[in-house]
């Protein structure tokens, strides 16, 4: 079995400005997607032999992203930008990662603790969600003593709101428990920082030199109509999506809790769909009402992922598009009915500003109303901590996440801007880098702004269609077990092989890491020999061989950012003007042929 090396010449090279495969540009933490795809494609067919390779790939991913096992179940942002989308379907990168995660989740429990020497300052992380944990992970590896202050009694934050049918509990707990175990991060549970016993100043006095604050958005947004709260949200039967999902994940809601009840979920985001599909699994006759329209491409399109919408539809959830809620009718203490006027426009030049046609309204029976229209931070606490500007917004530098009011405080995660899990993780990494620079007295901004350009799709004769992803049929899916089937080893290899490896070699180096090549070679053009015929430009699949008009003649050049050193142009060049520098093939051929001649001669 090969051994993949991550250091020295096999380390991927980062640059301030560079080409990357589009998936890696899209990934907020720029995970080395191509490299691990290539490594997966080069696993042996024998499962026992491959097991070792899978752990090696997992170790590589884990080093950068301790949540990759979770990402393999819930993320897949990279697939949205895959070059293959237009040619047969994006590479199923999420499932490839899940394939690694399926083994690695159990390997994590046995993984040895990192050998870390923590000789640097104490840093406090407020909030134990993906943002805070990522910062804690990165800072501990840099040698800081990190303490996480978590308001609740468990780590994970909003990750617990992801329903179990999408993310098995074992995957999440394994990722969370092992992260703190491997890095030796100190966690204090039931320790909310803000308006309570603990304040930022107190942390400072206790000897924490810097604080990363990522305490999320615990306050659900209420339902409004025409700028005012809709009355009746205090009725029994009305709940907020976040609270509902939180209670379900804590096991506080028994099976079939909603059996025979008419459940209406308000909202068009992924969380609303999570709430609806969870309510459906609890037996509810579920309807989703959202302001947005069905056409995802329009300006008022529904923000939820297509797969969520398809899943909900399959499971028998009714979706009512382009409707708001103007009135909630109660019957005694309980919610009974809502009225839904037509929404004519959701966004305008000022942003979210829904307009309704109140003459067109439909009544809808609702015995349970789950409001999932977003969530916000605890503004009062932020104000008390002096983290807001005079207009009531967070006063931070978006590049470094440093507070403009207090230089030792860094802010990120949903608290800064609501986003995906990996957006919060990115903030954690950014803050860790900023904290290191701040505490080491380095320039906090220099070279931070990275400029990536996605590489185009390589040309090839045939593109292959994506594999079918199997979901358990809807009628057998009404439980909280996973409904999506993962890849087998053979399927994973096949799918990883489909990857076009669009990105340049310097950002991948999978081949170097397993010793197929000693180093990357480079194409050199001899301008005296080049006749400018352009054959190389027609053979190059990557657009790296280009023809350029010089003063006296036309000649070919190589764009080294795009070149993969495959050697096609060298073979194709009729005048021998192109050659690969640092390629051991010719020496090997000469050796073999000399040896051959000698044997014949002898």
């Amino acid at each position: 079995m090969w051994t993949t090396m991550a250091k020295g010449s096999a380390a991927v090279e980062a640059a301030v400005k560079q080409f990357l495969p589009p998936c890696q540009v899209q990934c907020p933490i720029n995970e080395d997607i191509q490299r691990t795809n290539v490594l997966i494609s080069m696993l042996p067919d024998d499962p026992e032999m491959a097991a070792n390779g899978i752990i090696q790939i997992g170790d590589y991913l884990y080093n950068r992203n301790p949540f990759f096992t979770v990402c393999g179940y819930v993320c897949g942002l990279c697939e949205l930008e895959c070059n293959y989308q237009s040619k047969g379907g994006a590479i199923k990168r999420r499932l490839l990662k899940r394939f690694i995660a399926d083994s690695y989740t159990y390997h994590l429990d046995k993984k040895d603790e990192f050998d870390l020497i923590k000789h640097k300052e104490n840093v406090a992380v407020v909030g134990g969600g993906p943002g805070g944990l990522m910062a804690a992970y990165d800072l501990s590896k840099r040698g800081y003593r990190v303490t996480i202050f978590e308001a609740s009694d468990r780590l994970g934050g909003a990750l617990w709101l992801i329903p179990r049918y999408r993310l098995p509990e074992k995957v999440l707990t394994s990722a969370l428990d092992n992260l703190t175990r491997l890095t030796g991060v100190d966690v204090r549970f039931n320790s909310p920082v803000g308006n309570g016993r603990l304040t930022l100043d107190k942390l400072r006095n206790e000897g924490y030199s810097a604080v990363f604050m990522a305490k999320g958005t615990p306050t659900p947004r209420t339902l409004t109509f025409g700028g005012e709260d809709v009355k009746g949200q205090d009725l029994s039967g009305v709940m907020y999506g976040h609270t509902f999902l939180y209670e379900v994940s804590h096991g506080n809601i028994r099976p079939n809790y909603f059996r025979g009840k008419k459940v209406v979920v308000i909202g068009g985001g992924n969380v609303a769909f999570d709430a609806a599909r969870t309510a459906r699994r609890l037996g509810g006759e579920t309807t989703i009402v959202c302001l947005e329209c069905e056409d995802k491409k329009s300006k008022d399109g529904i923000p939820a992922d297509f797969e969520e919408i398809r899943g909900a539809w399959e499971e028998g959830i009714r979706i009512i598009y382009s409707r708001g809620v103007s009135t909630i009718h109660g019957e005694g203490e309980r919610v009974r009915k809502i009225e839904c006027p037509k929404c004519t426009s959701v966004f305008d030049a000022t942003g979210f500003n829904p307009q309704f046609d109140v003459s067109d309204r439909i009544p809808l029976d609702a015995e349970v109303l789950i409001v999932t229209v977003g969530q916000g931070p605890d503004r009062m606490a932020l104000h008390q901590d002096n983290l807001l500007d005079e207009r009531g917004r967070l006063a931070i530098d978006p590049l470094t996440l440093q507070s403009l009011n207090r230089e030792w405080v860094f802010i990120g995660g949903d608290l800064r801007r609501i986003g995906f899990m990996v957006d919060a993780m990115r903030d954690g990494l950014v803050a860790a880098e900023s904290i290191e620079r701040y505490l080491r007295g380095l320039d906090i901004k220099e070279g931070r702004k990275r400029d990536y350009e996605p590489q185009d799709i390589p040309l090839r004769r045939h593109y292959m269609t994506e594999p079918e992803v199997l979901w358990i049929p809807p009628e057998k899916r009404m439980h909280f077990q996973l409904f999506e089937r993962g890849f087998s080893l053979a399927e994973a290899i096949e799918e990883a092989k489909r990857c076009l490896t669009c990105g340049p070699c310097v950002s991948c180096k999978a081949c170097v890491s397993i010793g197929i090549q000693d180093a990357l070679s480079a194409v050199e053009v001899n301008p005296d020999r080049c006749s400018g015929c352009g054959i190389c430009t027609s053979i190059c699949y990557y657009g790296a061989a280009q023809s350029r008009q010089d003063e006296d003649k036309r000649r070919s050049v190589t764009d080294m950012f795009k070149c993969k050193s495959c050697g096609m142009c060298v073979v194709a060049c009729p005048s021998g003007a192109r050659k690969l520098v640092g390629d051991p093939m010719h020496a090997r051929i000469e050796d073999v042929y000399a040896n051959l001649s000698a044997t014949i001669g002898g």
Partner: protein
Amino acid sequence: MEYNPNIVCFSCKFGWGYVGDKQSGNGSPENWVPVVCSGKVESTHILEAFKAGADGVLILACQEGHCHYQDGNFQTGKKVYLLQKVLETFGIEHERVRMEMARNPEGDKIVQLVKDMKQDISKLGPVRRF
């Protein structure tokens, strides 16, 4: 003495023998040239092989559609087809250049394929030299 044909074997490193045990060197065929992509094998390399005394050239490429560099194996396929025609006109049988498109991570089939080719070439005898 029994005729033992010399086979030069080019093999793509992305499709053949990448999980093999490199240290032991067990069973690696003689006159073996692993290349990063079969597409890098030039016609002249094949001709040079015959010049150096080879009786056959075996090129092991990736499966169709699975080239790491998009279509390197296809390019080589074209080249081999044309070269076979040219070689025939010089009295070198087309069977002496063989291409195999498959995948064998362990690399254990390489030796066997060389052996098979040797057997077939034995029937042809040495390359006729003018």
